[in-house]
């Protein structure tokens, strides 16, 4: 039988983390070189210098690279925020897509984008997404945080999703540009196509800040498993913890959605699959969910690019096709446990 100190160490989890990092790197490289056009590596390397800048460089630096980086950043944010929300709300179904956080972020982004505000002030776009996300996470915490009943959380999520979704449709309809009303599908389903390095720069600051806030709280999440009272007597300031997690989630999800639209289910699938591998500890789950989220989104994006559809499939459609049945299976398996 393992000694107590063996059981309490995190060697297994570190191995899992390393494996996931390697997997993500591999998928990243694959993503850089998969596409309609076969890139010539030599041209790319030569093109790094201004004199030899060529078309392959343009495709690599301005189309493939930003898209792959966004997949990593956004995938990590989605996986991480799913795990964080589940720890905060002590509920395995909490996920930014399902509980309406993505829809609210999309609403915020849409208001900023179609009013033309983001043309004069580019940072307004992620700020709009973050504001929308912040409002909804706070509302959700107030409605369903104390009472960790699954039913309350899901109902609150449905209400917020519907409200945000319909307000988004309204905003798009009222927008002056004729293309706007057709773009609702992009915002609600999500897509990484036409990503540019400008998008990456917009995301970096709020995302890293959000990740930092969430990671700081990881041990407190473990203690929170014992309930809010016990956690408080073990020295955790609940108000500070909640604020950090809410703000952190809003920052990374809000910024991500403002650039890619609402990609759902990554934050549900990834933590759920990894939780048993990390002994169900919320603290260990955070990092591996982030890395696995990045890997999953990279993978989905590669598939979307390889599918022979005339117009590229929205990536959110793919994640929903995988995620929704997964969600249904979760419900079926745990019906009795959640009936209370």
């Amino acid at each position: 039988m393992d000694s107590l100190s063996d059981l309490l160490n995190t060697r297994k989890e570190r191995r899992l983390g390393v494996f996931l990092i390697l997997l993500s790197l591999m998928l990243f490289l694959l993503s850089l070189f998969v596409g309609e056009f076969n890139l010539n590596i030599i041209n790319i390397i030569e093109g790094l210098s201004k004199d030899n800048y060529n078309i392959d460089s343009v495709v690599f630096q301005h189309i493939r690279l930003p898209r792959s980086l966004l997949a990593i950043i956004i995938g990590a944010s989605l996986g991480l925020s799913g795990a964080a929300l589940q720890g905060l709300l002590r509920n395995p179904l909490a996920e930014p897509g399902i509980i309406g956080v993505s829809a609210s972020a999309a609403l915020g982004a849409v208001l900023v984008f179609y009013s033309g505000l983001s043309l004069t002030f580019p940072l307004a776009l992620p700020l709009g997404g973050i504001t929308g996300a912040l409002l909804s996470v706070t509302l959700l915490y107030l409605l369903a945080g104390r009472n960790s009943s699954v039913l309350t959380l899901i109902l609150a999520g449905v209400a917020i999703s519907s409200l945000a979704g319909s307000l988004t449709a309204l905003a798009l309809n009222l927008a002056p540009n004729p293309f706007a009303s057709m773009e609702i599908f992009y915002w609600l389903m999500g897509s990484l196509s036409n990503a540019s390095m400008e998008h990456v720069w917009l995301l970096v600051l709020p995302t890293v800040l959000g990740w930092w806030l969430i990671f700081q709280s990881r041990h407190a999440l473990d203690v929170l498993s014992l309930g809010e009272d016990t956690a408080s007597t073990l020295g955790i300031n609940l108000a500070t913890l909640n604020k950090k997690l809410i703000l952190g989630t809003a920052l990374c999800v809000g910024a991500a959605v403002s650039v890619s639209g609402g990609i759902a289910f990554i934050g549900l699938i990834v933590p759920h699959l990894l939780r048993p591998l990390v002994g169900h500890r919320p603290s260990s789950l955070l990092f591996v969910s982030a890395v696995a989220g990045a890997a999953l989104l990279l993978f989905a994006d590669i598939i979307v690019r390889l599918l022979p559809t005339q117009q590229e499939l929205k990536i959110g459609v793919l994640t929903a096709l995988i995620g929704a049945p997964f969600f249904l299976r979760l419900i079926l398996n745990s019906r009795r446990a959640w009936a209370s």
Partner: protein
Amino acid sequence: MIFQRFFLLLIGLYTCFFSTVLFAKPQRIVSLNLCADQLLMELLPPQRLVGVTNMARDPDISFSYQKAKDYHAHSGRVEEIIALKPDLIVAGQFTSSASNQLLETLGYPVIKIGLPYTMAGIFEQIEAIGKEVNAEVAAGSLVNNFKRRLAVLNKKKRQAPLLRAIVYYANGYSAGQQTIVNEILNVAGFTNIAAEEGLIGVAPFSLERLVTSKPDVLILGELTNNESSLAHRLLQHKAIKEMINVGQVEKILVPDRLWNCAGPSSIAAANYLIKLP
């Protein structure tokens, strides 16, 4: 007995009326379609073309926007159209609008025009419409005018090697084979890359394909005030700017009104591309 005779009389009158409508030459024509507007305005005076769409006066989308000021514009609503007392209605083939169908049900003759994609097709359409609206002479002279201008263009345009051009619309669409844009490009002396790559109709053409197709000329729509949509943002993607720099691509901005319809505007579009007046 009396009822039978009354009934026959009614049928007789009805047939007379109907044949009057069928066989008389139309005097009052209303157009329900922007492309039909432009074509008909070349053939008919305002007394005969009693209604055009209110899009005809929009300089962003109507080539004949100045001419349209002389014509009465309607809002497209059926009551307004009926009040114009038309005896012939011209609509677009692909707009299966409720208005068209309602007007047909009410007994108004409706003819539908398609979207030709060759110059020859345009000439045929002008002549056919000319017959329908009793303006054959005007139609004939319009066609001759076009053929003359086409000949001038043919002499002035660039000979081989042809420049490779591609048109890129908001949302990442291009115009391939079987489009009027393709024909105009050919007439103006360009090779249409999208057609070369097998694209048919107006269809999606990814950013990556655009950048790697190495065009000599990139044709975009003229910028308007309203660029806030994802569709329009795509046209400002850094990769397009870089492609223009690296490949020393010539960028031409073509106003939509020059080629969103096939007809009177098409020669003007071709001239615009090779910078003829």
